[in-house]
């Protein structure tokens, strides 16, 4: 009887030790797994950063008269948007795939255009007359040549858009080719989270 209980005690001890070892092993591998997941999240952030840089730098989107980039040309944006999936494919060829982007006009002082102070020097603009008018034409999407220039929203690679996307937004300048003016806008980029 004493022999049996001693054996049982010993076996139970061994089982506990084995269970501990396996628990430690599982912990190590789960930890590794989660650290790889963190790595993946970092990759998504890095891809977003890269896409922002790529948009800001891209000669296909920016106006060439602004050498330092960051001034989108509305006619180029419209041309790419009007090409649909082909335009998306073109952007993907230099920026990689698995993203969605949207450019919006966020501020436009409609009444300031071509206003000069009659009594003063030629460069004095009467700011009191400026109105930030974002109604109507500037909230319309530019999807074809017919919309241009009475539109202010450009969407690219809409087919890549899904619910599991991580977004980043930044302010940008948009050159209005027809008016020869620069307005403020926002660039929103979404990347698929794997």
């Amino acid at each position, binding site marked *: 009887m004493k*022999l049996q209980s*001693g*054996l049982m005690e*010993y076996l139970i001890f*061994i089982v506990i*030790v*084995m269970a501990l*070892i396996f628990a430690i*092993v599982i912990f*190590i591998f789960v930890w*590794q797994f989660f650290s*790889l997941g963190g*790595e993946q999240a970092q*990759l998504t952030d*890095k891809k977003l950063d*890269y896409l922002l*840089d*790529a948009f*800001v*730098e891209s*000669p*296909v989107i920016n106006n*060439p*008269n602004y050498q330092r980039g960051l001034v989108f040309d509305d*006619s*180029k944006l*419209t*041309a*790419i948007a*009007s*090409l649909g999936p*082909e*335009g998306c*494919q*073109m952007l993907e*060829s*230099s*920026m*990689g*795939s698995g993203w969605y982007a949207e450019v919006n006009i966020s501020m436009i002082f409609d009444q300031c255009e*071509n206003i000069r102070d009659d009594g003063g020097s*030629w460069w004095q603009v009467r700011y009191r007359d400026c109105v930030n008018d974002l109604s109507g034409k500037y909230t319309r999407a530019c999807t074809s*040549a017919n919309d*241009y*220039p009475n539109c202010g929203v450009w969407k690219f690679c809409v087919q890549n858009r899904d619910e599991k996307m991580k977004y980043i937004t930044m302010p940008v300048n948009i050159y209005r*080719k*027809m008016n*020869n003016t620069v307005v403020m806008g926002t660039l929103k980029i979404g990347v698929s989270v794997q």
Partner: protein
Amino acid sequence: MTSTFEVFRILLSILIMVFILLVFLRIADMYMTLQTMKNKIQTVNAFEETVRQVYTTGYPATFQGFTGFETIEYDYDGMGNSGRIKSDAGVKTLDLPVFFRPDRESSLALEKKCEDFGWWRFCWVNTVPKSMRIFFNPVTNTREARALILNISENFGQTELFVCNSTAVAPDLPYSRDDFSYIMANLGYLPSSEIDVCDAYITEPSVLVIIGSVDSAPQPARQNIIIVDPASKKIRDIGGIYEYHDESDIAAFIIGGNSSLDFKKRVFNQSLEAAASVMKARSVLLNGKMKILNRPLCPECPPQLYPKECGGVSYNGIERSDGLFLTFANSLDSLVQNLNSDEYWDELNAVNGVYTQLKSSGCE
């Protein structure tokens, strides 16, 4: 006296200890493999990140390299415009145009280069081992050959460059870019007959570039010797003769041989086709719509300071761009149709010409 239980316990203990030891060894091995793999994946990801930074910022960079890797190769996706890094860490596709000569021993120099056509810009990243040196041997010592060498060297801003004559290599180490420029400038005083084929034994990853005729110069005996013939615009290596168009083609060839040159041509054409379709759509969009006020911003200014007019028909003080944008769109169309023909570069020059006209007309 030892009881049966004691013997059983000792035996079982030994068995379990051996089992635990084996399990631990196996786990340690798996963990080490996993860690090594993770480090390698991180290295490849870091390389991709460095490439992206160089591409977007334009600043050259150094990457610490792939030391510890058992294999590292770079090839090009046959259909698309991407390169693939094949290594112990698996296959990684690079989205950007990258010309890459992998090396496990040395750190890498990364540099962005661009060809600017005004209406379109094509950029790529050159990545070469820091230990790579380029030896030029201008057997044909003409002004064009020397200009070609200087233009090729601009693609390798962080690479050591030398001129080789017979077995002599100049400048001697320690080396500086100024020394190379000085030697190049002085080559102008030397007749071709005084420059012999380079016999110095140049080991990889360094490359010997002979500027001469692909037919008359001695044939390349090793993988790292190439002959560039500016007269016929051909390159010869141990594998055959290939056509090039400009110095960036030669640079791509120096980095990765014929597959790299093929990739450069393919990715250039794809990028050009894409840019042409956007610019064509844009030109059609702007044609007839674009109006620029023909009213000087400062009436007291001399006429040369007036804003430029976007040429075409004048109507009620408004200049319209009718015609010019359409001409540009048509020239782009013609370019895309001739992408794979002999007239390709003539068409590209024609497009650049119309764009220059657009710019000088104040439409851009």
